[in-house]
């Protein structure tokens, strides 16, 4: 029964990925990455990972799409590569032979598929992720957390609270870095404007 949901989602994921790679309209490509994120979120929901699905839907489909669209609205519409190619050239097929990239991609894909043979089956009770932290957090967290039902939150905020503090610091640092890079221009502009205003007043 689940196959009726799982197979269409995976097929749509593959189709969306190919479309993103092939499409040349940047606006459409951004929208397709948003669709890809939503499909990934649905897929994670099927895998019983609602916390990850939440994050993927909110960050991947929501914020990232908005920021990419904002970037596109700021950049010139015409895409120029290395000063020689214009957007019309970009539509054409690349002149290089596709054989070498195809070979590399095929070998990498085969290696990855070969690697999955060693992985445990989905939901295998003897998989390392189920047996490794002995006794597992799932068993320990109920008495430790005094009845907090969400083990994911217990692990993130309490058992691994120090890691989450580091992640929050990373988000903070990234925000400061973006602010330092992007805000400089507007500061210069406002200074120029204020100089112009004072100049007019004087």
């Amino acid at each position, binding site marked *: 029964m689940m196959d009726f949901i799982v197979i269409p989602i995976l097929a749509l994921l593959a189709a969306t990925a190919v479309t993103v790679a092939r499409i040349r309209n940047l606006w459409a490509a951004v929208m397709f990455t948003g669709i890809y994120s939503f499909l990934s979120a649905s897929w994670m929901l099927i895998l019983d990972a609602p916390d990850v699905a939440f994050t993927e839907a909110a960050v991947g489909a929501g914020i990232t799409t908005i920021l990419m669209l*904002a970037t596109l609205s700021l950049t010139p519409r015409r895409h120029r590569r290395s000063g020689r190619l214009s957007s019309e050239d970009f539509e054409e097929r690349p002149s290089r032979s596709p054989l070498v990239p195809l070979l590399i991609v095929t070998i990498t894909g085969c290696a990855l598929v070969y690697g999955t043979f060693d992985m445990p089956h989905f939901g295998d009770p003897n998989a390392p992720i189920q047996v490794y932290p002995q006794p597992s957090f799932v068993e320990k967290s109920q008495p430790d957390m005094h009845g907090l039902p969400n083990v994911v939150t217990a692990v993130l*905020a309490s058992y691994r609270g120090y890691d989450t503090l580091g992640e929050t610091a990373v988000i903070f640092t990234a925000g400061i870095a973006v602010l330092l890079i*992007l805000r400089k221009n507007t500061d210069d502009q406002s200074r120029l404007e204020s100089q112009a205003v004072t100049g007019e007043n004087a």
Partner: protein
Amino acid sequence: MNSFPIIRVITKLLIPYILLFGLYVQFHGDFGPGGGFQAGVIFAAALILYGLVYGLPAVHKVAPPKVIEKLTAVGLLVYAGTGLVCMLLGGNFLDYDVLNHGLLTELPAALDFLLSDKPHHFLPEGQHLGIFLVELGVGITVTAVMTMIFYAFAGRERVTS
């Protein structure tokens, strides 16, 4: 977006529910799926939606950039401060068990004990309080950083060439 009345009206209808859902995800994160990070992103999404439809000056009135910039640090300080309070109370850094305050459980439990002789459960809520504070810090930082990045992008002029 001033010339799209449908989008403006629908946005105004949607934003309260987005904010409410963000609060739910934030404060219900220890019982259901969610937590500070997701709630922060949802909260920021509401602000960004408002900014997209009603323009940057309107959203600057709701969430002034100077306040948002300071909130990025406030969230992190709430998180680290929770850890420091745990140390001051004699525990390890981020060891929430020392945060047991007993206000919410011992009083009802005492009343319960007075009113009936049934066995009652003492719920030590140190872990709950610690996780609540920590997730609050994460939520504040994520909301502020996402909104700040949007401000930084939207405040720039379009490159013309």
